[in-house]
């Protein structure tokens, strides 16, 4: 019963129905670990991995699971993928795993993932579900990255510090010191800074949306030169 085109799915995940900016799901990890770019990227990638996996698995079993027990079944699937991700991170990026700590296991409670499983993957075939998982994960990761970059820049005056946690030794000198001798701005690093930053990102998105809408409305209602004016009822602007 797929009614959406793949293009539409992508646009939903990245912009119109972005899990972080519009659905406001998964705020707990979003606000808690976005102190630096590397933390944000780590958590974003882990969430994306789980989201793709769980969407595929849920889509495959969607006709077998009775609706009454679908939520426990979905949670079980998600939990297995989270465990896989956790073990993978322990194996390959152990330092990052210790930095992110409890927020990796907590991906299982991220409403964005269960939400996509129930709202999309349970009703759609394999390919759209996989694309939806990828795009939703990407949308979530981009917001995490933006917030992480903003907080790292304002909080410590650097960008891409400690990237070696994720990319190995070669990434050690990726750190950019934007401001030299920067006094740490603790507010941006502490949770209140995350709330304010998140609010600003949502405000920017909304203002872009209303700008776009204004332009589109302007196109629709614009008076075409040379057209005759007709008295119409039912619409007053």
């Amino acid at each position, binding site marked *: 019963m797929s009614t959406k085109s793949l293009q539409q799915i992508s646009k939903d995940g990245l912009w119109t129905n972005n899990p972080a900016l519009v659905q406001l799901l998964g705020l707990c990890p979003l606000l808690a670990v976005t102190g630096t770019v590397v933390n944000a990227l780590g958590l974003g990638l882990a969430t994306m991995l789980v989201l793709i996996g769980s969407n595929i698995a849920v889509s495959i079993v969607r006709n077998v699971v009775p609706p009454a027990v679908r939520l426990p079944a979905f949670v079980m699937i998600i939990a297995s993928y989270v465990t896989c991700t956790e073990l993978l991170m322990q194996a390959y990026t152990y330092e990052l795993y210790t930095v992110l700590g409890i927020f990796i296991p907590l991906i299982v409670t991220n409403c964005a993932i269960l939400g996509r499983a129930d709202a999309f993957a349970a009703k759609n075939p394999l390919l759209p579900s996989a694309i939806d998982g990828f795009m939703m994960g990407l949308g979530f990761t981009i917001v995490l990255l933006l917030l992480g970059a903003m907080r790292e820049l304002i909080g410590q005056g650097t960008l891409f510090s400690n990237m070696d946690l994720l990319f190995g030794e070669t990434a050690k000198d990726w750190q950019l010191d934007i401001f030299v001798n920067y006094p740490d701005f*603790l507010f941006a690093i502490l949770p209140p800074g995350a709330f304010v930053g998140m609010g600003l990102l949502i405000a920017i998105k909304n203002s872009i949306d209303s700008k776009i809408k204004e332009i589109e409305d302007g196109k629709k209602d614009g008076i075409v030169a040379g057209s005759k004016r007709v008295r119409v009822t039912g619409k007053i602007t």
Partner: protein
Amino acid sequence: MKLLNISSPHATRPGTTGGVMQQVLLAMLPGIAALTYFFGMGHIIQIALAVIVAVGAEAAVLYIRKKPIGFFLKDYSAVVTAVLLALALPPLTPWWITIVATLFAIVVAKHLYGGLGQNPFNPAMIGFALVLISFPVPMTTSWTAPTPILENAIGFSDAVTLIFSQRETIDAYTMATPLDLYKHKVAVATADEITLDPIFGSGIALGWEWVNIAFLIGGLYLLWRKIFTWHIPVSYLAALTACSILFGWDSDRFVPTSLHILAGATMLGAFFIATDPVTASTTPLGKLIYGAGIGLFIYVIRAWGTYPDAIAFAVLLMNFAAPFIDQYTQPRTYGHAKAKRGLPGKE
């Protein structure tokens, strides 16, 4: 017709917002004079810096919001916010902290919420709280020692140098505030030993007592001019006094009542910050509860918190509660029966 959705009091009085704000500025003069006399020129520079930044930021935001700039600048609210913020900051705060605090107060705490009259929190205290949690070290080590016990008084050029450029020599001029010092020493010393420290002088707290009395005089002037009612300052001071007597009667273990009342920013908070008409409660009973809440929180944060003073956090916490207090303390309308309280019972 569009109904006006504004908070009480609905009855207005002659005069303008600008007039009220000018009275507030006037009433702060004795306090500013006392601070300058006892703690050097730092406060004057902070006030000048904060006012310039605040007015500039206000004009810029008004321009972006397409509001009449001249009309809103003339209400002096940005100036009052800036002066209150500058008085709350330590006199030798580095210049960039003052700028960050002022910008945050005007742009985020005031205009993002809709400008004067719409802000749920006191902008000056938001700016102060922001820099206090963000830069704890410069914010707690920039308090100057009282001039009478300094070898060289802090002149204008000294203050400019210390605030704007090099801060290496700052230790020669700074000292913990009496409240902070007492709190930290009381664990290891008795009251008599602590008050030997020259910072307490021969009275209660050298310099601070006169600063607080000066703010008290300014506050009483505003009360006389009916800029605000007596409820908030009285319940604030009563609650603070009651708490400090209840818990702190033993001055060998707790900061004594006299220090709570006459040191730190107690009087500035009571008459100039807690009484902000926008963010405080508006009903008479509500004002009493609001003021008492601030007094209580000040005591709690001063006694068991780690910050040198508590006015900002106490005021902000009660700002949260003000709409709720107003909701439950609405006075009886003249000619109507008393409102039924609690859940409807069986008749």
